[in-house]
């Protein structure tokens, strides 16, 4: 074929909203996938210049270095309160509260429930990997029954520390939220579903609807002491039955 008839067609590229920098996440960690999904959704909705990302304390504390939008650090567990302050001052922006399981369901449980109950017009991205990653693998509120961690070395014993908390089901008892869905990033299929959920959660803000909550089951090979591929299998086999995937609410 003569060279002058070759046409270039871009079929895939780095999202504009994703910074072209090396990140600090471990091999096989789900945060990188979720960051990219967020960046793709922000690009596709055309809201890069009107989005504010609140980053939590935890592994994703530096998320504002990876997403090219205005960014705000929050104290541990307080991201929904910080997001509330931001959104109440700038109601026309899209405010994302990006949080892990310790942040959202342990130290920040009150902020989580009350922001949802007020129907704050924010989007919460809840990354559930059933462990405290950044601090070295301690038991999380979502750690599974019998799961061994640094602070549950003999396995999580429900008689002692209770069962894993299901965030979506908990928030589904409240009236105000407009969107609640649990997704995963363990396969192409689940990743595409997660992207659709994130898109819906962000679009709800653009359209001035209420509070959206997207839980994403994610791998933490380092914290779990597994190879990345083994971590994907463990998540599908062990986590998904405890945290069933699916949409709980879409108004």
């Amino acid at each position, binding site marked *: 074929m003569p060279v002058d008839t070759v046409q270039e067609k871009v079929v895939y590229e780095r999202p504009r909203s994703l910074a072209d920098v090396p990140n600090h996440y471990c091999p096989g960690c789900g945060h990188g996938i979720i960051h990219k999904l967020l960046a793709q959704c922000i690009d596709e909705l055309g809201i890069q210049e009107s989005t504010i990302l609140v980053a939590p304390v935890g592994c994703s504390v530096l998320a504002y270095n990876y997403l090219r939008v*205005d960014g705000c*650090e929050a104290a541990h567990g307080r991201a929904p309160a910080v997001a509330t302050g*931001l959104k109440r001052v700038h109601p026309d922006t899209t405010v994302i509260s990006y949080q892990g399981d310790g942040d959202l369901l342990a130290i920040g449980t009150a902020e989580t429930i009350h922001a949802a109950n007020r129907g704050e017009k924010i989007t919460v991205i809840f990354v559930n990997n059933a462990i405290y990653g950044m601090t070295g693998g301690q038991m999380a509120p979502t750690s599974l029954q019998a799961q061994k961690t640094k602070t549950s070395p003999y396995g999580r014993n429900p008689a002692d520390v209770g069962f894993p908390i299901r965030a979506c089901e908990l928030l589904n008892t409240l009236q105000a939220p407009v969107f609640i869905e649990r997704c995963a990033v363990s396969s192409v299929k689940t990743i595409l579903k997660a992207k659709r959920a994130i898109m819906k959660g962000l679009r709800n803000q653009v359209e001035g609807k209420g509070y959206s909550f997207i839980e994403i089951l994610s791998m933490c090979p380092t914290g779990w002491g597994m190879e990345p591929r083994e971590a994907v299998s463990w998540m599908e086999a062990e986590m998904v039955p405890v945290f069933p995937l699916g949409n709980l609410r879409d108004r």
Partner: protein
Amino acid sequence: MGVILMKGNEAIGESAIIAGCRHYFGYPITPQNELPAYMAARLPKVGGTFLQAESEVAAINMVYGAAAAGARVMTSSSSPGVSLKMEGISYLAGAELPAVVVNMMRGGPGLGNIAGAQGDYFQAVKGGGHGDYHSIVLAPSTVQELADLTGKAFDLADEYRMVVILLGDGFTGQMSEPITLPKPSGRSFDKSSWSLSGAKGRDPHIIASMRLNPDNALEMLNLKLQAKYRQIEKSETLWESVSVDDAEYLLVGFGLSARICKSAVSVLRKAGVKAGLFRPITLWPFPAGQLAAVSAGKKKVLVVEMNAGQMVQDVRLSVGGAPVDFLGTLGGATPQVDAIVERITGHAG
């Protein structure tokens, strides 16, 4: 509008609105409940936002978010609630965000009681939260001064991008007095170079206190904060002196205690005792140099506080030669003029 009768806590609310504050986040606690109630009624009428948070912790973090968004924002509470806000105040300091925090102090420690007290001087002035930081601390002693210093607090917060604590007490907050509402200062502060609003036509802004790269980034942030604090110590001290020039005895107090000391000075002067009063209005920065000058050559300096002796430590560090005595009241009790007079003259007034 002329002279009107207003309760201290409500005077803070109206003065904040005059100063352009349109966002208030708080949680109920006595003895400051008139302030959130006032804001709940007034802010919606002026296009503002009042939000009752689920906790003091959430309230101060909503303040953090609103401050990051560039708004003039305040919260208020009383001693036990302010303890809960300390985490957020440290984050506000680290992220260099402007906010006004009102503490109408009550008796402690613990749940204590709901009477006015001054036991949170250390907490407000020496830090309170973690890390090396200061808040500017203003100590009003009358309802008029509560009103006047509220606007000043917002200007100082915006000028230096830091927390300003209005440190009152439950009595002053509950007291009704005739006041003239302040006029807006007219000062404006451009926050567009750092605040968050969506990165429209510019690079993203980031509000954070964490500094990891390069290795000395956190040291550099702290050096910057300390340089700012040294500048504030030079230029922002406020104090009041009453009858100090010929005084042989100098009373030192802040807030309500200073007001009682003022009455004691009158009683002493009528009895022929040359007494005066030095009243720090900024507790941080503490007017150390001014107090050193005023106290020079006095027979005695008597510090009066509604606590077990907190500001007296700063007074001792400031005063040169004169002996420093202390009179304190505890658990929500107020100093009595007679007791102050007796401590100076050695016999009951």
